[in-house]
């Protein structure tokens, strides 16, 4: 089921198995038949740890989503709530418990907090008078969830907002705890590097926890050589840019959630021979995306421009494999062919799916001579667009560019900003986008990007953008704009000196000759722009940060190095030519393009370092900005 987790440099299946064992233990503690009531948000991440079959083995007979009112009837002995520690959920649980039918045979209540129990929540249950009704109040420590053979995420949606806007560092505490768990399983990590305030804080907590647990050292040979902690606010630029890898684009356009993507079904409709036009499926097609699928593992990190060639190459190989049947003459040969059929068919399905996805993406990204029919829209799912469209017959100014043109123009402006062209003036493209009421998040991404690339905007420019945004999208967005300013994504230029060009040049963030087909540098993931975060990682491995002291000082927060003592006898003896293993932890989120860049570095022949990636949340520019928007009331209609 999760074999792909063990193929990487570090066997992350150990972590998953540990988490499953915990789950079984908890379930067995509640003897007898059970029903689980789920906080819906948790079902996604939980799906990566355990499938229903595991729960069923432990007498889970029913599952419900958490809702107010009375719990559905179910002849079970135990009711278990699986919830995040959120106060509003406690109120719902209390309602459930209170309205339980007293006439029926009593059911036992249990509550399992994920990832940690919370005193406030328990207090809330106590206030509602239901805490006493619970036989078990427990926590299920699920800090780091393995997403792939080299990828761990906490899937903590609000982490960036909490750390950098609200200044609540609870998620950092969980991060430190998660890293302690990881060290318990994979051994102490001897070297810790970091950049940024949050990184410093996490490192301090880790060192302190280690002191407190001194004497309980786990006797595990260290798997990781180095831990690198990076604050997201050290590199605010990268997530704002449109990702141009295959996986990154899937995420930008359709959104990947807990390893699944939902796609428009049209291109996946299958016609069988001899059948007439079948009804097109109307529900979105849901696909799981991870390295368990051979083809996906091969193409996900490629620049999208190289995906077509890879797919057609694959198609030829598969066709040839199927053609082999003509050559199979002897019984033995035929038998061998047949034995390979299941694998070949899986490969064919996989190829068909990805060809369809690539077509979907291409409709949006490629610039064609004849504009294609209007695509449902790159950002249609986003907020606010609908509010405006609803009013007055139809939309005010109909979008008069096709999706692919919009994509192209948007990218051009992004690249201008990243190369430092005209970042100090009002940009006419942004102006036009506002005028035609493009989705607000798109506008905010671009304006923030301009601000970051110019080390803040001039008063006049900032005022102009703000006014245009408020007038077009509504004054209530004063709140969102303020949030962006507080996190530094949008700011007023205070000094006349813009240090972004220096950073760009020193770290070689812009590469003129990015090779998309056969990349020789990480900049291929953004067709020219090398993500700052990954460049820092790369430079740390070779030649070391000492070479870029000046630039490090320009980026926010301290940079540091710590060492952790290893118990005697656990020092790793490196074989000649053996790669080092570095865990890179992105505090506040990481994008798929950054992950692709790190995978690229892992695979470089003379790289010398392999990377495992961990983060608080997998993000893209849209989900990131959205998390910073002030939660607005539902539109009145």
């Amino acid at each position, binding site marked *: 089921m999760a074999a792909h987790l063990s193929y990487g440099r570090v066997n992350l299946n*150990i972590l998953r198995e*540990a988490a499953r064992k915990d789950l079984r233990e908890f379930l067995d503690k509640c*003897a007898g*038949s059970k029903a689980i009531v789920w906080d819906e948000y948790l*079902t996604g991440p*939980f*799906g990566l740890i355990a499938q*229903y079959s595991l729960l069923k083995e432990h*007498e889970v*007979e029913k*599952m419900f989503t958490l809702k107010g009112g009375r719990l559905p009837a179910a002849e079970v002995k135990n009711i278990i709530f699986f919830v995040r520690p959120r*106060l509003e959920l406690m109120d719902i649980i209390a309602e459930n418990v209170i309205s339980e039918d007293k006439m029926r045979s009593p059911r036992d209540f249990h509550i399992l907090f994920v990832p*940690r129990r919370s005193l*406030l929540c328990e*207090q809330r249950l106590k206030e509602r008078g239901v805490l*006493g009704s619970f036989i078990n*109040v427990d926590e299920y*420590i699920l800090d780091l969830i393995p997403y792939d053979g080299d990828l761990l995420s906490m899937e903590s949606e609000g982490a960036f907002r909490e750390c950098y806007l609200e200044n*609540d*560092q*609870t998620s950092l505490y969980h991060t430190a705890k998660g890293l302690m768990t990881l060290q*318990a399983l994979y051994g102490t990590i001897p070297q810790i590097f970091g950049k940024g305030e949050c990184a410093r*804080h996490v490192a301090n907590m880790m060192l*302190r926890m280690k002191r*407190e647990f001194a004497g*309980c050292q786990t006797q595990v040979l260290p798997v990781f050589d180095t831990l690198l902690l990076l604050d997201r606010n050290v590199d605010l630029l990268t997530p704002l840019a449109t990702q141009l890898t295959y996986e990154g684009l899937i995420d930008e356009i359709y959104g990947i959630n807990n390893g699944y993507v939902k796609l428009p079904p049209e291109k996946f409709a299958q016609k069988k*021979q001899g059948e007439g036009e079948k009804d097109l499926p109307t529900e*979105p097609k*849901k696909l*799981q995306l991870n390295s368990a699928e051979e083809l996906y593992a091969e193409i996900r990190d490629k620049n*999208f421009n190289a995906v*077509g*060639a890879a797919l*057609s190459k694959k198609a030829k190989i598969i066709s040839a494999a*199927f053609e082999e049947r003509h050559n199979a003459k002897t019984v033995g040969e035929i038998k061998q062919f047949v034995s390979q*059929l299941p694998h070949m*068919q899986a490969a*064919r*399905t*996989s190829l*068909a799916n990805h060809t369809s996805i690539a077509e979907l993406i291409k409709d949006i990204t490629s610039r064609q001579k004849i504009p294609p029919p209007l695509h449902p829209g790159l950002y249609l799912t986003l907020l606010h667009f609908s*509010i*405006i469209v609803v009013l007055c*017959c139809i939309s*005010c100014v109909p979008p*008069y560019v096709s999706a692919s043109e919009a*994509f192209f123009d948007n990218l051009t402006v992004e690249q201008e900003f990243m*190369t430092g*062209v005209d970042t100090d003036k009002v940009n006419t493209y942004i102006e036009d986008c506002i*005028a035609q009421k493009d989705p607000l998040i798109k506008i905010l991404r671009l304006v923030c990007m301009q601000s970051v690339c110019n080390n803040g905007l001039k008063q006049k420019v900032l*005022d102009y953008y703000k*006014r245009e945004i*408020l*007038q*077009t*999208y509504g*004054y209530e967005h004063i709140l969102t704009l*303020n949030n962006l300013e507080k996190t530094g994504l949008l700011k007023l230029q205070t000094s006349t000196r813009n240090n972004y060009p220096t950073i760009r040049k020193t770290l070689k963030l812009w590469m003129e000759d990015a090779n998309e087909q056969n990349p020789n540098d990480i900049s291929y993931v953004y*067709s020219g722009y090398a993500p700052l975060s990954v460049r820092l990682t790369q430079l740390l491995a070779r030649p070391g940060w000492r070479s870029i002291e000046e630039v490090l000082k320009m980026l926010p927060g301290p940079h540091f190095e710590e060492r952790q003592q290893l118990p005697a006898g656990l020092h790793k003896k490196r074989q000649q030519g053996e790669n080092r293993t570095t865990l890179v932890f992105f505090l506040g989120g990481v994008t798929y393009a950054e992950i692709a860049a790190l995978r690229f570095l892992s695979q470089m022949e003379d790289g010398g370092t392999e990377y495992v990636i961990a983060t608080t949340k997998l993000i893209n520019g849209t989900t990131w900005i959205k998390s910073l928007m002030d939660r*607005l009331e539902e539109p009145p209609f």
Partner: protein
Amino acid sequence: MMRSKPDEDDYWNSSKCRAFTFDDDYDELSSLKESKRAVNSIRQFVVDEDEDEDDMVKVSWSGEPIGSITWSIKETASSTKQEQSFPKIDSGPSLPRQGSGYSLSSLFKAFSEPSTRNFAPELRKPKSEYKDYVSDWSPEETVKRMQRGKFCSLETFRSLKDKMQLLDQAVCANDGNVITAVCTHVFLQKYFLQCKLEVLSRELMSRDVALRHYIHYLKEMGEQKLLVELFKSLGRTEDMALLQYREHLSIKDEVRRKEYLKSCISLPFPPDDAGHVQDHYTLLERQIIIEANDKHLENKGQVEVFKKHPRKASILNMPIITTLYYSCLQFPFKLSLTLPSTISEKQYLLTALSARAKLKEWLDVGSLFTTKNWLGYTKKRSPIGFHRVVDILHKNNAPAQVLQEYVCLVEDPNLKISLAQKYKCHDIVIDMYKDQKDRQQLIVYQGKVERGSPEDKKIQDILNNTQIRWKN
């Protein structure tokens, strides 16, 4: 570095900002097609085995992988014949499980008392027993217990000094859960009532971490009043102002909302926001008037515009540009009376243009761009570029001669000619090629127009004209 060449074309061709595009020489689309074809041909061959095709993940047609948790919730919740669908498992000891010997919690068991970890028994203990039980714990011990998820009575920490010691200890532990719990559970709500806010905020100000956690907690809880008071006493007036402004979102009634916004105007906003809040109030005030008026008119059913374009939604709480558009649909030239003057010329023009074009009032469209110079000549001028005007007109199905008029006004000759071709303004294309003395292009274009049409004839006449010195 890159703008050394003034020529725009040169810039794009040699640009270092290569945009994301597919190389013409290697057509990606065709390779996708190729793989699609290959896939399809294979499909024909294996069509019989097609039934069992999602080998890797089984997916029910609703899209959920079968066996996933989300899928199972639906399945188990919706199944009516529960007893049959899920065989009862005996509640005896479960099968021996295999797997890794590790367990996350066991790793840390050594550090906590194993038997108490999973329960909260203290909560159900009689009150008397409870008291002795906790009375002599130091702040440090208390925090440690809390970190282990055990409930502690914090009532023993009575004096301000004791409380602050406890708070400092919690902050030291870095555990946000404990910090917030200490902040809320013990002090603040009770404390607020008894003691002066200033004393408290002075204490808290030097405890930044605790303060931030507490503020976040109050936000989450929607403790508006408390938060406003706290911000005020901390001197964080801008935060306070924004917080109060935010409240307007929860007021549904538009008149009360308007009044509330009015009361917000005087709040100590950051300088540039103050103006926006004032504008917000003015806008809503006017929207209320417009709405009442138009509802009335619409009900009477005498206004032409509402018959043609019935109002689909209320104008209340719409952005100002949307309001402007709405107004332009009806009273194009009374706008300055009804809306604040902060809208930029471009925004105004685009909005008015879209509205008038939608109503097919082409004369009005003309007047938007007409300016008179001091000699009395009229001239058309636009701050947004006539190519965009043309696009908008085209989207609104403007007639050919209107389109032609505006295509003519486009300045950039390349853009002009491509627009003219796109919108079939033949005369413009023909005249431009003639002016450029571009015989080849003209011949090519002749192939695109209908045979025997006036355009065809016109081109033929020009080609036959011996006076012209063609450049090719």
